[in-house]
């Protein structure tokens, strides 16, 4: 059983409440700019280390914003943010950045966006001549063909660092293991739990779930944006609280929390 309030669509009331509360908290923290304590995320910090390693070794960096299998979703946006940041650091250090695109048919859309973002970073750092569009080829619209070509690029060019953040499926292990074989530092991030487990085994650093989604704010160093990370923690704490209350209340014979969450 669930209760409804007109004009809210049936079954979406709790979702609407969650959205409104999150929106209000995010806006509040963005405006307040009170930087909360944010723990270090080793995988995100390692990007700078990876770029430094590439500069020292004089080798290129290879990065991917994922396959974008279902279009531009949250993980792909996080992947694009990470690619933008990597491109900025590479341009600053006058490094060659290779970003093989593809993996799904939807990746064609991401490709144009990614090329624009990377080129802009090189231009903003005054290194537009260092940007080479051939380093961002569209390899294939099929997952394994893309992964094979990605690995081929790594085997030929021997990059110092492999950064792969975004939507990743089974091919992620293939890419990260080949990265490991060629001696690259592998930094990865995925939103698919089974994949995260495999990537944890095969990568030097891995971003787990929300770490990847918060990376854009974490890297911006902007107090307002950093403060929005607090929203995630608060909402999560509230959800855990609801879960515990729900369990207790259910054990006492009332399904009020269950009804509320189904509403």
């Amino acid at each position: 059983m669930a209760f409804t309030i007109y004009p809210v669509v049936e079954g979406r009331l709790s979702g609407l409440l969650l959205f409104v509360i999150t929106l209000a908290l995010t806006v509040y923290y963005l405006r307040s700019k009170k930087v909360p304590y944010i723990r270090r995320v080793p995988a995100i910090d390692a990007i700078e280390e990876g770029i430094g390693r590439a500069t020292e070794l004089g080798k290129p960096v290879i990065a991917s914003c994922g396959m974008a299998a279902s279009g531009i979703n949250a993980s792909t946006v996080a992947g694009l943010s990470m690619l933008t940041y990597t491109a900025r650091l590479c341009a600053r250090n006058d490094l060659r950045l290779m970003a093989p695109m593809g993996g799904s048919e939807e990746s064609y859309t991401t490709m144009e966006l990614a090329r624009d973002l990377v080129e802009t970073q090189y231009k903003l750092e005054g290194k537009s001549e260092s940007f080479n569009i051939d380093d961002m080829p569209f390899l294939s619209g099929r997952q394994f063909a893309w992964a094979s070509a990605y690995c081929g690029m790594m085997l030929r060019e021997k990059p110092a660092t492999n950064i792969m953040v975004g939507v990743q499926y089974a091919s992620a292990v293939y890419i990260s293991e080949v990265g490991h074989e060629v001696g690259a530092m592998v930094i990865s991030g995925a939103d698919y739990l089974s994949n995260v487990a495999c990537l944890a085994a095969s990568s030097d650093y891995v971003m787990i779930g929300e770490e990847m989604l918060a990376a854009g704010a974490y890297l911006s160093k902007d107090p307002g944006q950093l403060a929005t990370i607090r929203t995630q923690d608060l909402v999560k704490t509230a959800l855990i609280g609801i879960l515990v209350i729900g369990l207790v209340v259910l054990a006492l014979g009332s399904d009020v929390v269950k009804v509320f969450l189904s509403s």
Partner: protein
Amino acid sequence: MSFLKRKEFYVIILVIVSLFIYVPYFFKVPQAITNIETWLIDSSVVIGAFAVWVGFITSTRREIVRIQRRRRGWFYGVIILVLSWTMVIVGLGLGKTHVIFEFLQYAFVLPGDSTIYAILVFYLTSAGARAFRVNSFESGLLTVGALFVLLKQAPLGELLAPWVVPISTYLENYVAMGATRVFSVSLAVGALVLSIRLMMGQELALVGLVERVVKKEE
């Protein structure tokens, strides 16, 4: 066109579009608003379809340049061009259900995919061998847990050690399931906050695109 230089312009567009998507999802609205929502979603599909062609033409151009300049591996460019254009011509001319298109699909594309997928087993094993090296209490615990699950899943494992089945089932249904739920909830909350940040023009990827427009205008 000075408004194009202002970030607010892009944020306003984002907010308007987001409202047309969010409002009909949560509220009962007049049909006209639902139509706008449908139109916006359809437009993204159309834009995506155009992007497919843009991407295809770009990659064709790139391969032609590679072949003309005899860059390393140019011969593979010839193969890519021949195969991709064959698929396009056959697919567009004869249709996706035609016997020739299906032959190309089943004789070349699928076996290639399956081969790469099969190779993954070896990569997973090598990654697992590194991950399950026991050098601390936690890694020891992980290895023991993995052994139980492996024994249950492996052929004959259940026959050789029937006592692992309840332990493995418990690990899968409670320990792993709990972690999965936590992961899903945190991912959903993270995605929600990211979408709000994006809507407010704060996310790095969007800022990057706006920088591009400003640069072009200058």
